[in-house]
């Protein structure tokens, strides 16, 4: 019986309206354990060099094989240099992890896109752009930003290494079903308000733990009108409010993005898949455990001022007083001390030392188009060090083909090679202690971009405005 029939059967038996999340989840439960988790089947498993080696070691210790190697895809990204990728990797520990990924993939028959492979790039960029990520799927990876793939109407979330070993050995994990949250954003987004601003706004309202225990569906006309790149940015950041993942119902935007991608279904398989994908939406009247509504008009370009992604604000505002916020003031003060900021400071005008555009959050072609729209005809500020890092070789190629590289070069920017780079600074792209970085990545935790680094999360437009002026600047003033 194929999946469509299972779904139809399920829904003809139960007349209760279902959510998108329920439809996909319930179709993947192999067994329900009483007073325990569901044995949950995984359609697609991505692995990278950092969180997989110990899982492979576990398989060897137990003497078991990979059950479905064709459902796992390996790419090197977290620990890779972003210049001179043709040369041997200098750091012996990084080189060792990259070699382990290559050897483990070869040993178990897993497809591997290592350094130098034209398909190489950040796992959450290459999955979708090669047509591996599809609606209705369950997708996991030993990386919390796996939530990105929810943009396609998939249930996608990050797992730990023990669970990576579970997926390799049995294609399943043990997972209790999360609660359901819907976040509706309706209305028209203002000038220079990008998907990154939408997600930073939502997280600032819900806080960094506001969606813990939930799986989120994003709905409303803001998401309906959003491109796939934008939807990926939003779903990517779901984990930053504690949600396991976030998803958006697939629609024509989704289907036309997927159609023709290398590993996407073709011909008859496409027609069949499309018919199923069109059933993947929340029925009218379906119940959520909690629901939030936001007005698009309330969102302005955002920037963070603290040490978690919930500490964000409209760029024209001033840093809130600790007493105005929920949660402990001691932690709030610790955070502002770390950042070298004070309550009621204006963010606009603060000096910026580093700018990073890239990562699984904002490393796609649309992000570089936005960045280029501001830097075009301007010059990088002399005191700013900028890292411009595409999410994949395919994105890098698009940057060249669309003439964006010329704009960047003319403005004094160097285009680097793909990888996670300064998002988590496992490679040499580290922000020095005490320096300020405007970053399009996803986390502003203490030391995230290098020990002592101070991160201001923002959109590609805000990053570009900082890069050309050298200060936190409202991008609307440059448009």
């Amino acid at each position, binding site marked *: *019986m*194929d*999946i469509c029939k*299972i779904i139809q059967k399920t829904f003809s038996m139960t007349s209760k309206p279902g959510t998108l999340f329920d439809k996909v989840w319930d179709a993947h439960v*192999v067994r329900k*354990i*009483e*007073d*325990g*988790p569901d*044995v949950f*089947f995984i359609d697609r498993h991505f692995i990278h060099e*950092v*969180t997989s*080696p*110990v899982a492979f*070691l576990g398989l060897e*210790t*137990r003497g*078991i094989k990979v*059950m479905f190697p064709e459902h796992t895809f390996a790419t090197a990204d*977290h620990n890779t240099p972003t210049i001179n990728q043709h040369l041997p990797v200098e750091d012996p520990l990084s080189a*060792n*992890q990259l070699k*382990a990924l290559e050897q483990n993939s070869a040993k178990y028959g897993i497809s591997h896109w290592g350094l130098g492979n034209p398909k190489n790039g950040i796992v959450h960029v290459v999955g979708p752009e090669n047509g591996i990520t599809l609606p*209705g799927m369950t997708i996991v990876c*030993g990386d*919390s930003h796996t939530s990105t793939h929810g943009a396609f109407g998939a249930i996608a979330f*990050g*797992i*730990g290494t*023990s669970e990576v070993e*579970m997926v390799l*050995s*049995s*294609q399943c*994990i*043990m997972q209790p079903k*999360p609660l359901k949250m819907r976040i509706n954003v309706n209305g028209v987004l203002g000038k220079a308000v990008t998907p990154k601003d939408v997600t930073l706004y939502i997280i600032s309202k819900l806080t*960094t*733990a506001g969606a*813990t*225990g939930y799986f989120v569906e994003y709905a409303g006309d803001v998401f309906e009108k959003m491109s796939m790149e934008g939807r990926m940015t939003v779903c990517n950041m779901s*984990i930053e409010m*504690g949600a*396991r993942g976030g998803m958006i119902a697939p629609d024509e935007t989704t289907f036309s993005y997927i159609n023709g991608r290398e590993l996407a279904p073709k011909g008859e398989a496409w027609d069949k*898949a499309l018919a*199923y994908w069109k059933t993947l939406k929340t029925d009218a009247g379906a119940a959520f455990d909690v629901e939030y509504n936001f007005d698009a008009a309330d969102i302005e370009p955002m920037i963070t001022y603290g040490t*978690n992604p919930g500490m964000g604000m409209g760029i024209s505002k001033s840093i809130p007083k600790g007493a105005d916020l929920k949660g*402990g003031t001691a*932690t709030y003060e610790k955070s502002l001390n770390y950042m070298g900021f004070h309550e009621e400071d204006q963010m606009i005008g603060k000096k910026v030392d580093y700018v990073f555009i890239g990562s699984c959050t904002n490393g796609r072609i649309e992000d570089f188009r936005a960045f280029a729209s501001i830097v075009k005809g301007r010059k990088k500020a002399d005191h700013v060090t900028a890292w411009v890092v595409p999410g994949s070789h395919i994105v890098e190629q698009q940057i060249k083909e669309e003439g964006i590289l010329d704009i960047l070069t003319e403005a004094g920017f160097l285009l680097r090679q793909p990888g996670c780079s300064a998002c*988590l*600074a*496992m490679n040499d792209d580290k922000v020095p202690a005490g320096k300020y970085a405007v970053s399009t990545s996803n*986390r502003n*935790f*203490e*030391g*995230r971009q290098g*020990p002592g680094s101070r991160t201001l999360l923002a959109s590609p437009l805000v990053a570009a405005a900082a890069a050309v002026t050298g200060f936190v600047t409202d991008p609307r003033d440059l448009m």
Partner: protein
Amino acid sequence: MAYDKFNILTSTGVPLPIENVDTDQIIPARFLKATKREAFGDNLFRDWRYNADNTPKQDFVLNNPIYSGKILVGGTNFGSGSSREHAAWAIYDYGFRCVVSSFFADIFKNNAINMGILPVQVSPAFLEKIFLAIEADPTTEFIVSLPEQTITISATGEKESFDINGYKKNNLLNGFDDIDYLQAMKSDIATFAAAKAV
């Protein structure tokens, strides 16, 4: 591959009354380069614990000899951020077997249980009592009983219950592991996969 069994743990607690402790603080990304699960405890809370020149920061709790024990007590939303299981490995490797907080991030909680660390979620009020008890006397012991699903402050006898699902509880009590369970139902999984084939 079974891990340590967990039954009743009686220990002093190490207080870390900071909210939103993220896994980048528990173990910074630059220490994730190993291909084996070894020596992560050395870098537990690395940048809170050590200065840039690797000298210990005297004001950090792990460098204060009056605090020790197998129970780490953290502020609300403990373990947010990255899914790195290395965070749980570092906590375990350092010698903790239980983390107490008033709220845990999902992935961290799963990772902890999957390697035999018991996450104990208590009410904010009880967490405050635990912090106060340690502050008053760092040798105060806590009794964490998995069979009874309770945590007790031994000095006062105050007690609170915590939740854990029956399946995971049984795993921890017996040192059982999910992978053995999944291996034992592989034919069911194969049947499911064949029927599903999209």
